């Protein structure tokens, strides 16, 4: 106990540990210096973060995927630095959930330094955000990142000129290549720089309004009066809420000043404000950027990047990408890895050994069945989790991380937008939809990146209905790979259900059509380290989420068996399963499916391997399982993200729909005497 206390005190004194008090005004030995990385999406913030901390954060090319805030520690000499990676933000007036988080990180926590990371190529477009940070009177340094790409475009950045113009330290880096990191570390470990005196000058009506509002502001806003006045002039909800909390008595007067300023302009004040900032940014960028030479010849990545969004070539490239997913997930994951782990490791070695061991330890068959029986915790729960599902999901997450980090996903989004509009989604929804092919539960969480409640609801519904997760996909591809016709029918039916339901949902749900806008990042070669780290962190999330549920499912099934409830439920399901032409054993696969969607697929896999399913029945089972009610984990997440009513409604639609489609397909296959 004493030793731990001593260690705690030592950590406090050496700055390894904060005192937990977030209101410490300055960094002291008790509170390590805190550095916030700030910037728009796709500027390599997360790469800078990784380079500084050596630890992991989700790196992404897609605006919105860094919703979670990554925190880490950097050791620079004998100084410990707490580094926070904020979600991508385009402006200090937040529009998205990400930007709200970013703004809160900026204004609500004490910071010793804000490092604004920008893409050197887009300096002029990104400087307005630097100017906003300066207006907020935050201790600032600028990291002009990805200079290698700018140099390829023939641009040279004069960081000294930039530093003189802005009055803050500026460092040029190519973080992914390790260029400029020495200087970056030096800048972030120096004591906070003197406050810059740079100000953007706005047109007279706005300047006068800023002056009037700033005079009224006297509370502690952790933001300069000028910056807050500018936010109020743009009718930023967050700023107004802060005003009402701190100084409700001046709110009416502020509103009057804002309205008076607005009457001077035909458009919202955000326009002239943005334009003044942009003009100032252009002036600064002109002095700091030099067209040193002609752009280098297009690289392979640039040519591919252009081709990948080309209306013909881009769509032609799609099958190649799908094939890649298939090869990695279907062949490597479902084929090689599952075979080795399931049949080899568990089937031949672990299961017999465990069964023998537990049977000796627990001579009561009922109790032994909990661990090693047909549905045992170890022989079934753990085996499914570790030997069948985990390798599939790992293979998928690996592929997804490569697609994400290469910048291909936004391209896929812009290719898909037109089609997706038909089913009530924007192209942006391609991210959760493709991720759903890995794990629908995780994808349901990721629907947060979508713009409206309506779009999130439609995406949640379609994920639950018609997007098979990698576990199902692996099993389905494995079982149907020998039957090309079966595979085509399966894909055709699931796709038609997806499109038809989406089409109907888009018609029936009230609300505006989603809008689509997206920055297209350059196609980049992903860094293997980031890809592996990202796959690892997703797998960790998955394992924490899934393995307990697998084990829980095993326990539930055992309880069901012991109490005779399970056979009763299976018996109740049997007529339903029989109606769609499946053998009676398949009934428990559907019950398993309730507990875990992929569990159901794995069960079908078992039945089929035993020769219990073949031909049309197998196909019907695959289609119904794909459409069938989401797994327990997904249901819980749906409920958490969309509310209980929405989750129940989705369930109530899917259950009859899945069996209805299975029933119709069976009739059709039998009627047409289709041989598979």
């Amino acid at each position, binding site marked *: 106990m004493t030793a731990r206390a001593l260690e705690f005190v030592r950590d406090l004194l050496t700055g390894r540990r904060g005192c937990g008090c977030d209101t410490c005004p300055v960094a002291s030995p008790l509170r390590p210096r805190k550095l916030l990385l700030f910037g728009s999406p796709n500027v390599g913030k997360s790469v800078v973060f990784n380079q500084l901390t050596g630890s992991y954060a989700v790196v992404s090319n897609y605006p919105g995927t860094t919703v979670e805030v990554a925190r880490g520690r950097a050791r620079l000499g004998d100084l410990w630095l707490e580094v926070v990676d904020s979600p991508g933000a385009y402006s200090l007036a937040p529009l998205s959930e990400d930007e709200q988080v970013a703004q809160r990180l900026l204004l609500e926590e004490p910071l010793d330094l804000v490092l604004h990371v920008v893409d050197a190529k887009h300096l002029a477009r990104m400087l307005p955000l630097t100017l906003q940070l300066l207006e907020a009177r935050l201790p600032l340094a600028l990291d002009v990142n990805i200079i290698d790409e700018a140099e390829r475009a023939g641009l040279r950045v004069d960081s000294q000129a930039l530093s003189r113009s802005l009055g803050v330290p500026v460092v040029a880096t190519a973080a992914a290549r390790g260029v400029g990191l020495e200087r970056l570390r030096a800048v972030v470990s120096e004591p906070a720089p003197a406050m810059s005196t740079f100000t953007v000058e706005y047109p007279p009506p706005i300047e006068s309004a800023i002056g009037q509002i700033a005079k009224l502001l006297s509370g502690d806003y952790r933001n300069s009066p000028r910056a807050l006045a500018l936010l109020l002039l743009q009718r930023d909800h967050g700023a107004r809420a802060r005003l009402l909390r701190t100084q409700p008595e001046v709110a009416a007067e502020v509103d009057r000043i804002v309205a008076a300023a607005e009457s001077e302009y035909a458009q919202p004040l955000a326009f002239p404000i943005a334009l003044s900032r942009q003009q100032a940014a252009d002036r600064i960028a002109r002095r700091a950027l030099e067209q040193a030479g002609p752009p280098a010849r297009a690289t392979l990545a640039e040519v591919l990047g252009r081709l990948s969004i080309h209306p013909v070539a881009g769509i032609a490239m799609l099958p190649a990408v799908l094939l890649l997913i298939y090869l990695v997930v279907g062949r490597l994951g479902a084929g090689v890895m599952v075979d080795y782990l399931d049949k080899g490791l568990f089937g031949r070695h672990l299961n017999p050994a465990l069964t023998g061991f537990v049977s000796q330890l627990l001579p009561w068959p009922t109790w032994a069945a909990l661990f090693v029986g047909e549905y045992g915790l170890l022989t079934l729960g753990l085996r499914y989790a570790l030997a069948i599902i985990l390798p599939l999901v790992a293979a998928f997450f690996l592929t997804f991380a490569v697609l994400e980090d290469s910048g291909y996903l936004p391209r896929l989004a812009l290719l*898909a937008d037109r089609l997706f509009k038909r089913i009530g989604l924007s192209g942006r929804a391609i991210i959760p939809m493709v991720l759903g092919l890995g794990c629908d539960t995780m994808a349901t969480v990721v629907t947060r990146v979508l713009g409206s409640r309506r779009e999130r609801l439609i995406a949640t519904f379609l994920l639950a209905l018609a997007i098979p997760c990698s576990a199902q996909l692996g099993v389905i591809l494995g079982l149907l790979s020998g039957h090309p016709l079966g595979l085509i029918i399966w894909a055709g039916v699931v796709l038609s259900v997806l499109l038809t339901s989406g089409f109907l949902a888009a018609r029936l749900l009230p609300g505006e059509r989603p809008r689509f*806008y997206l920055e297209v990042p350059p196609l980049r070669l992903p860094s293997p380290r980031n890809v592996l780290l990202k796959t690892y962190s997703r797998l960790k999330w998955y394992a924490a989420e899934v393995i307990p549920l697998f084990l829980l499912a095993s326990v539930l099934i055992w309880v069901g068996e012991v109490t005779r409830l399970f056979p009763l439920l299976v018996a109740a399901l049997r007529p339903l399963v029989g109606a769609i032409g499946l053998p009676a054993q398949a009934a428990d696969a559907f019950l398993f499916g309730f507990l875990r969607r992929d569990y159901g697929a794995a069960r079908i896999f078992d039945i089929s391997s035993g020769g219990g399913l073949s031909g049309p029945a197998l196909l019907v089972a695959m289609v119904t399982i794909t459409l069938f009610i989401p797994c327990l984990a997904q249901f819980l997440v749906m409920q958490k993200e969309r509310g209980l009513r929405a989750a129940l409604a989705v369930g109530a639609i899917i259950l009859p729909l899945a069996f209805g489609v299975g029933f119709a397909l069976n009739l059709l296959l039998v009627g047409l005497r289709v041989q598979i």
Partner: protein
Amino acid sequence: MPEPGLSEAAEELLAGLWLARENGPEPPCPVDEASRPAAVRELVEAGLVEEREGLPSLTPAGEAEASAVVRRERLAERLLADVLALGDQLASEAACRFEHLLRRGIDDRICTLLGHPRVCPHGSPIPPGACCQVGAEEAGKVVSSLADLTPGQRGVIAYVHSRRREMLHRLLAMGALPGAPVLLRQRFPSYVFDLGQGQIAVDQETARDIYVRLSDERASTRPRRAWFAPRLRRRRGRG
């Protein structure tokens, strides 16, 4: 329908009735007090205005004519602001006179030239004309919505207009500001355009919200005044 050939004062009164009902931010063009009674008589005789419950009110024919007058006035404002870069009082006053020259047919040509704008510089809707429905490719445009450019065409963003305020803020934040150079790369399956060194993809609806002044060799070298420069009150005296 025959050309009504209304006097300028009568047209302004018609537009005034329309504007009063629209209740937008825009004040009507001034009407000379002396010519007012004659103008009212003219409108009543033409069957465009009638008295209802003691107040002048538009007849169905008057409705159509007033809409045409307002359309001409707002197109004139757009033309003066976007192409001639007039600002302030000058543009507003000029528009009040200029509109009377845009007789039937000419207004459609101006509308086409400006890429069928949907709102005037004050943000009020421009009643659409027959030309706006045709939607055919026309030559000789100066301003065009991004959605009507052909791939490879360049220009400078003239203005951005969206019904959705949030969309506007988003586009501004991404750097789609007046004065920013753009180059349309492709229209299908999504609109992709270069904005500075970067690339942005949008759907058709959003592309329609971005108006571009097309680059050509006649382009003035003088930097253009912002289209949303402060609007000085152009008002006729109260009463």
